[in-house]
Structure formats: C-alpha cells, structure tokens
C-alpha cells in the first residue's frame, strides 16, 4: 500500500526520521527537562536515543502523552516538560490540545512525529495523510506557538526556542514510515519510579 502523503500541509516539508529527531532532541536537553514518550515507536525511539531519568516511557495508553505531560507541567511549573506524540495518538485525544491551550502552561511543549500513518499496527493511513493538518489543528485549538519543522535544522531551532521562550508550544515534523530502532524495557512501576526520582519527587 502506498502510504506516502499527498496532503498539502506536508508539501514543503522534508521527510525526516523519528530516531534522528529524537537523538537531536535529547542532545539539546541540559536542564533536566522532563520528556513523556507516546505509545509505541515514539517512546521506543526516545528510549533508543539515550536513557534519561527525566524521561517517562508510557507503554500502552494511546493518546495520553499530552495529558500526562500537562499534569507534570502543572505540578512542576519551573521544569520544562515535553510530550513526544505520534499523529495517530494525538488524533485520538485532540481535545487535550484545547485543554493545554486553555490552561496555557508556559513550560509545556508538544512534539508531534507525523508519519501520516499508524506505523506500529501496519502503517494504515491516518487522516493527516489527507486533510488533517496537525499545526492547523493546534492553532485552531488555541496553541499560538505551533509550527512545522521543515527539516532537521529547523526542528533543532524550534526545540531551542521552546526551551527558552514561554509556551505552550507545538512542533510538528513530517517523518518517514520507519519503525523505531529499539523497544523499551516493559516494567511500568520501575519506569514510574525512575521518572519520579529523575524529576526530584522521590529522593
């Protein structure tokens, strides 16, 4: 099946790669930023990009990376918090963008890895491969700082900006349909405990 997107909002974007972007993201994190990885590939590539105690690997709750990140951001307003989510997952919980926009936490950034498909379940197309423009949806939800990263360099500059300037912000990147390069260790209570220690909630 052809999964290449013909959507207009994808037209001028370089097709990047999730693992490549995850590595570039992690390399820019120097201030103990918390990162919440979405179901499947998104958290697998985050894991593969270098384990950090401030990363939370969410294993099975499709669509909940943004709500979890919002909760962390509300609890720890001084820490920058980043949600990494897939397009299919975000589409399942679009209302959460409106909650983020309404509460407007300055320390929250959402990164969307848009491959136009549900890669992990067989690469079936999502609606972003057709008419749905993630950045347009975020702007419509009221997230004013929402942008497409046209290539890797622009992704890095948008991440740098998100780490310095007030949010909420959303960065969307067009990625290929490759699976993640590794898989996360599947031990929920261990993942949670490490994360809570990593962000200073447990000693």
């Amino acid at each position, binding site marked *: 099946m052809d999964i290449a997107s013909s959507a207009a909002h994808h037209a001028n974007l370089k097709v990047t790669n999730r693992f490549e972007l995850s590595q570039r993201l992690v390399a820019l994190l120097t201030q103990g930023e918390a990162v919440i990885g979405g179901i499947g590939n998104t958290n697998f590539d985050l894991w593969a990009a270098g384990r950090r105690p401030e990363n939370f690997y969410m294993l099975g709750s499709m669509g909940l990376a943004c709500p979890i990140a919002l909760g962390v951001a509300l609890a720890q307003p001084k820490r920058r918090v980043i949600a990494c989510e897939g397009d299919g997952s975000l589409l399942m919980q679009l*209302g959460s963008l409106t909650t983020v926009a309404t509460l407007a936490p300055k320390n929250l950034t959402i990164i969307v890895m848009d491959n136009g498909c549900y890669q992990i379940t067989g690469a079936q197309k999502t609606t972003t491969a057709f008419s749905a423009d993630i950045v347009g949806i975020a702007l419509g939800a009221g997230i004013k700082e929402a942008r497409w990263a046209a290539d890797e360099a622009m992704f890095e500059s948008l991440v740098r900006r998100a780490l310095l300037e007030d949010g909420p912000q959303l960065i969307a990147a067009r990625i290929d349909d490759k699976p993640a390069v590794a898989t996360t260790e599947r031990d929920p209570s261990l993942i949670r405990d490490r994360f809570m220690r990593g962000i200073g909630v447990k000693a």
Partner: protein
Amino acid sequence: MGAEPRSDLSTGLKPWHAIVSEALKRNEVRLVTYVPDRVLTPLIDSVHKDDFFTAFASTREEEALGIVTGAWMGGMRGAVLMQTSGFATLPNALASLAVPYQIPLLMFVSERGTLGEFNLGQALVCRTMRPVLDALGIENHTITRLDELDFIVDRSIKQAVATQAPCALILSPLLTGGKKFAH
C-alpha cells in the same frame, strides 16, 4: 418533587460537597479535573472558588486520568470527578496506565443509572462499573451516608497514596440526592 439530599438541616453535618472538598484539602489533593455531571455541580463550584485547588474541565475522562497521573509523578496529588457514563470510558486507561504504573488516582463517580434512573442507557452503563473495578482489583466504595462520607474519603485517599493504587468513590443518589426524574 424528588427527595432532597441529606443535608445539614436533618443531620447537623455539612453538605456532602463541603465534606469532600475539606477532605481533599486536608489530604493535599490540589488538582481537581472533571467532565461535569449535574449532581457534581456544587462540588465543582466549590473547588473552583477555592484558590487552594487547581480546578478545570478536561475534554474526556481518559485525558483527566492522564493529567492526574502526570501531576502525581510530578509531586501533586489529584482527583477526577465524573459521571457513571464517564467511568465507562476508562477501562483501557486504568488497565494500561493507572493500575500498572501504580498511580494513586482518586476517582469520584456520581452514580447515575440506579434509584430512580429515567434513561435506559444510564441504567445499563451503570451495571458495567463495579465489574470493571472488581476485574482490575481497584479499591472502591459506594458512599450512601453523610455521616460516613468524611471517614471514607479521608481514609481512602490515605490508603491510595500509601499503597500507590487507584481508588474509586461512588457517590450514591442516597448521598447526593441524585438526578431528579425529568418529566
């Protein structure tokens, strides 16, 4: 006229919503998010009016569960307020997140579907709630009496935190007065 909820007039106790918000406060539960229900309105109003609480509506109960999970991991206790029908949207999020990640998620469920329900769908969905809670081994209590409310809420919050486990507190129409039959 339907029956009035038990109140300070008949028992000398505060109204149910004041007892719940005081128990939340006493236990440092600051974040309260909800998908509304008519019966919950006085509780929602009181947490919005009190600066102690960070109170806001979520667009779905699953989203609310995710937010409370993140807040807990970030050091802030939280509760979700919902209706029976809202609980019915949660099994996947409970089974994939709150239970395995050991999150002391507090759920307050306003019980529709029983004791005078007029909507067949509500009556049916209500019957799924306790089997789901029991299947997942989630501590749950149905609260019917004003004089037991503070004890149950206070102890349940403490147990949820101490045992790192979610907990559902079902607010019966016997406690709240429920929703009156729509004529």
